């Protein structure tokens, strides 16, 4: 027995958030014939099921494009898979684990996020599984630092937008986060947590806001009748928020020079909707766009204030709100750059919402 083999497969990291469950799975690619022989049927079928599908049930999805190939973890070579499904399907997930006799594998299931606490009892009673609960912020930071250090299949994990204020010249460019500290980490899930990270071990939660991804999606559902995040984003991409929002120029006819406010700045989000005629003239797409812009700008504004208060000039945005959401990322990059007069830089990571789950997996291996 080699020391590294002490940790039995399968290796999972689980992050159960308010809206989404994020699951990372390490698929070993260096299995010896001997190992294969010994591998129990259960384990084999789990591996096959997860790696040969890209969708699970009606709601589970594997983000194939995020897969990390030929990773060495604890002396084992393999691929890291990234899977997500809605938190409301958690009972079905536990049920499946029970049916597949997951508990007979004698592995530890490391989980983080609020759901690790909320569903702990269900895991025990329904699945006969003891969860190893981990703090979500610890996991988040561990995950970010690890993924950034291994890179994204030879590319940079971290990126930024150059010329964010110029729509034509704006482009996505890699960013070297080799020496990351101090940094402000803004995690946008259903809600938002903002952390100031000074070193691997030294970080603090600065603040948080309840206006997050859940708010965007929740308001969009109410305003447009959409039912998925993708649908909401799609609508937003075709809308015009300036029909919904009252801009500085709508009030002052141009820039408000007394305060140095540009005419294009939003003076009042949804401010035009105070008028009946304007309420009747906007489209669902416009409303979706305004919701997205409102929530994004607000997060940018709070993040900027925290960065100033903490005297940090790099702000890393993560979380699933940013998934397939280039509008928000560009807006954040633009807002941070503009309002800080170029002093603050908005950074993004390719694996957006999966860092907590990665951190949980690392905890599993580290505790061996």
């Amino acid at each position, binding site marked *: 027995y080699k020391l590294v083999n002490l940790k039995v497969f399968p290796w999972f990291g689980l992050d159960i*958030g*308010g*809206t989404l469950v994020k699951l990372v799975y390490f698929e070993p690619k260096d299995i010896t014939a001997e190992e294969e022989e010994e591998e129990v049927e259960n384990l084999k079928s789990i591996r096959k099921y997860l790696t040969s599908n890209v969708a699970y049930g009606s709601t589970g999805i594997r983000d194939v494009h995020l897969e990390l190939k030929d990773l060495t973890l604890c002396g084992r070579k393999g691929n890291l898979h990234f899977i997500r499904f809605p938190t409301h399907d958690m009972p079905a997930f536990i049920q499946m684990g029970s049916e597949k006799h997951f508990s007979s594998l004698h592995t530890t299931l490391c989980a983080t*996020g*609020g*759901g690790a*606490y*909320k*569903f*702990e009892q269900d895991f025990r009673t329904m699945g006969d599984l003891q969860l190893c609960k981990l703090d979500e*912020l610890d996991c988040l930071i561990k995950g970010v630092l690890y993924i950034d250090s291994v890179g994204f299949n030879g590319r940079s994990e971290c990126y930024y937008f150059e010329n964010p204020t110029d729509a034509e010249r704006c482009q996505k460019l890699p960013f070297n986060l080799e020496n990351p500290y101090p940094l402000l980490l803004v995690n946008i*899930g*259903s*809600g938002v947590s903002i952390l100031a990270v000074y070193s691997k071990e030294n970080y603090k*939660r600065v*603040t948080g*806001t*309840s*206006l*997050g991804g*859940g*708010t965007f*999606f*929740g*308001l969009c*559902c*109410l*305003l447009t*009748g*959409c*039912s998925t995040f993708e649908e909401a984003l799609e609508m937003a991409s075709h809308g015009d928020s300036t029909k*919904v*929002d*009252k801009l500085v120029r709508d*009030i002052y006819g141009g820039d408000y020079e*007394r*305060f*140095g*406010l540009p005419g294009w700045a*939003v*003076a*009042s*989000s*949804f*401010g*035009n*909707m*105070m008028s*009946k005629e304007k*309420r009747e003239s906007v489209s669902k797409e416009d*409303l979706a766009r305004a919701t997205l812009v*409102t929530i994004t*700008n*607000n997060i940018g*504004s*709070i993040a900027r*204030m*925290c960065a*100033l*208060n903490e005297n940090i000039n790099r702000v890393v945005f993560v979380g699933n709100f940013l998934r397939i959401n280039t509008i928000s990322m560009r807006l954040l990059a633009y807002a941070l750059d503009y309002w800080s007069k170029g002093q603050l830089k908005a950074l993004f990571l390719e694996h957006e919402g999966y860092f907590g789950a990665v951190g949980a997996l690392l905890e599993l291996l580290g505790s061996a």
Partner: protein
Amino acid sequence: MDLLTALYSCSEKATYGCKVKGGSLTKLAYYSTVQHKVARVRSFDHSGKDIEHEPLYEISVQEEITARLHFIKFENTYIETCLDFIKDHLVNTETKVIKATGGGAYKFKDLIEKKLGLKVDKEDVMTCLIKGCNFVLKNIPHEVFAYQKDSDTEFRFQTNHPNIFPYLLVNIGSGVSIVKVETEDKFEWIGGSSIGGGTFWGLGALLTKTKKFDELLQLASKGQHTNVDMLVKDVYGGAYQTLGLSGNLIASSFGKSTTADKEFSKEDMAKSLLHMISNDIGQLACLYAKLHNLDKIYFGGFFIRGHPVTMRTITYSINFFSKGEVQALFLRHEGYLGAIGAFLKGAEQDNPNQYSWGENYAGSSGLMSTSPDVFPMQRTRSGTFDMFEMDRLERPLVNLPLLKDPSTYIPDTVDLTDDAMARKYWLTCFEEALDGVAKRAAASQPDSIDASERAEKFRQKYWNKLQTLRQQPFAYGTLTVRSLLDTREHCLNEFNFPDPYSKVKQKENGIALKCFQSVIESLDSLGWEERQFALVKGLLAGNVFDWGAKAVSDVLESEPQFGFEEAKSKLQERPWLEDSYSQWLERLKEGPPHKCALIFADNSGIDIILGVFPFVRELLSRGTEVILACNSGPALNDVTYSESLIVTERIAAMDPVIQSALREEKLLLVQTGSSSPCLDLSRLDKGLAVLVRERETDLVIIEGMGRAIHTNYYAALKCESLKLAVIKNSWLADRLGGKIFSVIFKYEVPCK
């Protein structure tokens, strides 16, 4: 009437009376000169006349012109009526320009220019707002309050801080502006947010199909946000303990509405929206306050204005995000700031900032009054007007330089907004005394044909004020015995009873002067120690004569012979209820004479002439200079400055000590700047303050219930002080643990 005006018009909706259709409001500020009657006293020329049977001095009522700032708020539908009103009164043709600010300034520009023939000069909204804010912070006591929903006192008024800068003003209109104000002229927009009142209104209208701002707030106050918001416990199953986040905190606003197949109630959505916006604003305000190192945050704008619901959520948010380090503060006259500022801009050549101003309680409708006074020109219609008036005071008011800590000085002893028992008692007490006051007012003007009619109007007005205060004790700031007394004086003035006690005072002064010499003779016959005690007893006995207290006015009305000696016999025997006489005597015996004593006098007649003057005389004999401070204007039977001049002149004619002291300027008469039966040491005539400093005053003597018990009982001074009074109210005596006619003799030496 000289009228300078300013308009502040914005898209704010009428917020009171659900029956009234909400329209946009316009605030009008105008400056007028008000003619009102004042009582004057003048010495007769006594040469060759029989002075035995003549009154001491002549009383006349004259017309006086004072400046008053008026602020009114009305719905835009009445703008034409309002402009007619301005036009009718705009006699001064020098006024060529009217200052206007706010969105409506653009809207009504043409109408105003056409109607009034004046040029409309638009002023920057925020500049006006800040100007107005500085003005009210400086000039109006109890302007600032904190809101506490679940406490007995919803509105907790703050003491005016001598230095109002720097502060943060968070104006929540359709968006949010965060402005840092550093000095009178220096302010800076440091940030803002687009999530503001317009977001609540616009998004709220979309979500609930409810069009009006007020109705949205009403919906919100009935809703349950937990049905719509994702709470920490929805994610964690309980609290997030590692971070100490309670399970009831909102993790994601609208996080539960992420589904197309569930219906949510309008109330719940409105509530969730209200929380979302209030929390967000509070969080940003705290972040800005932290960044700029500020701890005073005032909130204003239509989102806040008079809405307990939003004041509550903003207060909660500030408290949460600042971990209790910053308090959310609100302003009583917040809705008028823009109008005040626009007005001040227009009146800059008059430099209104050089004056002190006082809120006129009679002409102001108070915080969130449900029954605002009806604007004169609108009496026939159902009024939705809210008014606020400030009188320009003759002379600037300043802090007494001897106050130990002006920033924590609170004049009033009992806060009646806080103390429900005391409030009930005093409101009832003032109600019961009202008929008598009205009767006396009518009787004071026997030659006027409409005196009883005016007295009745006065009675009705003050009665209504008392009823308003029963319902809304916070309407004019912290409710105190002083504010009740002052409101009564303002109401009496409003109906042209400038000095109902003038004749009584005249008569009493005459009687007392006749006794002066014999009192002095008997005092002079005593040994030193005996005389000191007799002087103090005389001061106290004199103070029993107080028409302000009901128990005493009863006695005086029925037993006019009730004399000085009898008053002495009524006094409590030592030890008194509060008794530091021995220390005082010790001080006189052992210590060096005081350099200069400042005495705040109380009543006319026996009190000032037979009580205060012998005491003054003794101090002068010891080599102590005396500054005798009397009220500038009449209040009850308190001696006024002009009366004190005549009385002193007459005493000087009889007494060489007083005479030479006057001549050598060792006895100085000054006015307090006040017309109140109580005393606010933070608002005193500037001349008095200058003199106090010049003469190196080291002893302050405050006498009477109004000045030494209702106010200043706990006032801490930098020098020695003597507070003395006879408690002429059995309820108050009982509260302090004594009986009626108990004596308070409080001699204090500041600790080194």
